[in-house]
């Protein structure tokens, strides 16, 4: 086989792995609840494919080939572990299923159940996103660890622990009942958005892994939308991420300098992505169930209006933030609200809104929240309160991880 043919085969394997990974893991673990073994079995199957496909050619139905190989390996794995009592039903189940498989290469898409399992309330919320990235998208623990600022060994251990819990604690692979669906779906959306946020923050203009993680999150949202096309908030989440994604090229100057949203060159925004975002936002709105992600997307939509030559309607942004605060009064929302108030009603009013955050609730400490200090610094500076502004700038700079943002703040500080 020639080099280029071999390359084609490798690419075919990569493509199948990417597109089928989550489907195969979800299917293999839906009945057994053993996500870890399903992943191990699938990686065995992929290794086998790397050995045999270049030799025998890519099979007609690569997914079915992988499933058959993975299932064989799964049975071996479970047998090998010899946890006789617990796994005997599992084995019987798998043998039973193997028979069906030979008849039909089609198998149900269980990814939605897997997404709900990953974001199950019994699982540590900090592990929801890493679990999804690994079991649905096939990202390795080391890459997830970089993104989450955790050592690879620790991330590996935490993932194993979470999967053991899924296997042993009786968490069901099922779509939640109607009455608990909103809350459970919210956890799934939060986890996807967290992946996007980390990818977003990480992307210091050059960091490829950050960029990829944001793309993976959008992919996950698309998968979710495909599985739940009627949920307004799923459309909302996708719209929000697409709006942000549309601005990627404008976030940094040619020299890597940080460019704040209000100063971005909107010629560099991606119109197709903005239009797609708007379509999803419209679709969400037509379903008449407002939610956090739709509101956040709506705020980004107002910013995107600038691409059409109109000024920013700060009063509209302020109004969306007001609604958002009723649903999810997080520190981030309240800081965003204060920034919008400052633009709509003046710096004095914005600063009063910021002061309100600390006065209201001491439990959500703003002390280590960088955006709070950045907004505060800018407002104080605008009001000519130089000494206080310098203090706030220092706090913001000290809490900044991104060197480009740090540089930007240092310059503004003067």
């Amino acid at each position, binding site marked *: 086989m020639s080099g280029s043919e071999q390359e084609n085969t490798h690419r075919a394997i990569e493509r199948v792995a990417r597109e089928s990974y989550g489907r195969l893991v979800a299917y293999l673990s839906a009945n057994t609840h053993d996500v870890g073994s399903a992943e191990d079995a699938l990686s065995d199957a992929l290794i086998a494919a790397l050995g045999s496909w270049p030799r025998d050619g890519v099979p007609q139905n690569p997914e079915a080939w992988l499933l058959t190989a993975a299932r064989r390996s799964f049975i071996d794995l479970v047998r090998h572990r010899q946890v006789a009592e617990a796994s005997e039903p599992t084995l019987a189940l798998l043998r039973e299923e193997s028979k069906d498989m030979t008849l039909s290469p089609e198998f149900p898409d269980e990814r939605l159940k897997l997404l709900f399992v990953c974001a199950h309330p019994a699982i540590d919320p900090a592990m929801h996103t890493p679990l999804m990235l690994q079991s649905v998208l096939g990202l390795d623990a080391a890459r997830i660890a970089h993104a989450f*600022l*955790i*050592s690879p060994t*620790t991330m590996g251990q935490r993932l194993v622990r979470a999967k053991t819990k899924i296997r042993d604690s009786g968490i069901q692979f099922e779509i939640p009942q109607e009455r608990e669906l909103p809350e459970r779906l919210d956890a799934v959306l939060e986890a996807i958005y967290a992946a996007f946020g980390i990818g977003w923050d990480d992307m210091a203009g050059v960091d490829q892994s950050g960029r990829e993680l944001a793309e993976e999150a959008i992919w996950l949202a698309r998968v979710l939308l495909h599985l739940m096309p009627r949920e307004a908030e799923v459309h909302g989440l996708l719209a929000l991420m697409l709006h942000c994604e549309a601005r990627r090229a404008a976030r940094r100057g040619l020299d890597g300098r940080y460019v704040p949203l209000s100063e971005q060159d909107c010629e560099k925004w991606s119109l197709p992505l903005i239009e797609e975002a708007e379509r999803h936002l419209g679709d969400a709105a037509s379903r008449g169930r407002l939610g956090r992600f739709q509101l956040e997307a709506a705020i980004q939509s107002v910013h995107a209006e600038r691409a059409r030559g109109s000024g920013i309607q700060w009063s509209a942004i302020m109004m969306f933030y007001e609604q958002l605060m009723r649903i999810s009064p997080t520190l981030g929302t309240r800081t965003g609200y204060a920034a919008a108030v400052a633009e709509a009603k003046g710096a004095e009013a914005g600063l009063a809104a910021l002061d309100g955050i600390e006065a209201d609730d001491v439990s959500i400490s703003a*002390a*280590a929240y960088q955006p709070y200090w950045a907004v505060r610094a800018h407002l104080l500076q605008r009001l000519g309160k130089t000494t206080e502004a310098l203090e706030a*700038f*220092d*706090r*913001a*700079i*000290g*809490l*900044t*991880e991104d*060197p480009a943002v*740090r*540089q930007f703040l*240092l310059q503004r*500080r003067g």
Partner: protein
Amino acid sequence: MQFALLIFEPPAAFAARTADENDSYLGAWRAYHKAIVEAGIFVGGSPLQPPETGTTVRLKDGKRRVQDGPFADTKEQLGGFTILELPSLDAALEWAARCPAASIGAVEVRAVSPEYMRRVTG
């Protein structure tokens, strides 16, 4: 728990120490220091004189060996250390990522060892 942030810096960072008041690396460090003090987690620490001013001592076969310069000859050198009081390694890594040296050099995070300290102090 106490964690040591060991600050490894490239030669340019050591060279920049004599720069004027407007140096951005210095500005970033001032802000970072203020942030850890305000957060109430600063236990102690200090920058160190540049690596070439180091002198390394060891005894080999009972004989003193004194070497000019730092212990290890690497591009990035220990430039200082900070000890922070934090609840977990996760929190320590977060503060390490915010450290200005993290984007131009490296920051190693290690928990201090009170167990061994107790054995040493008796």
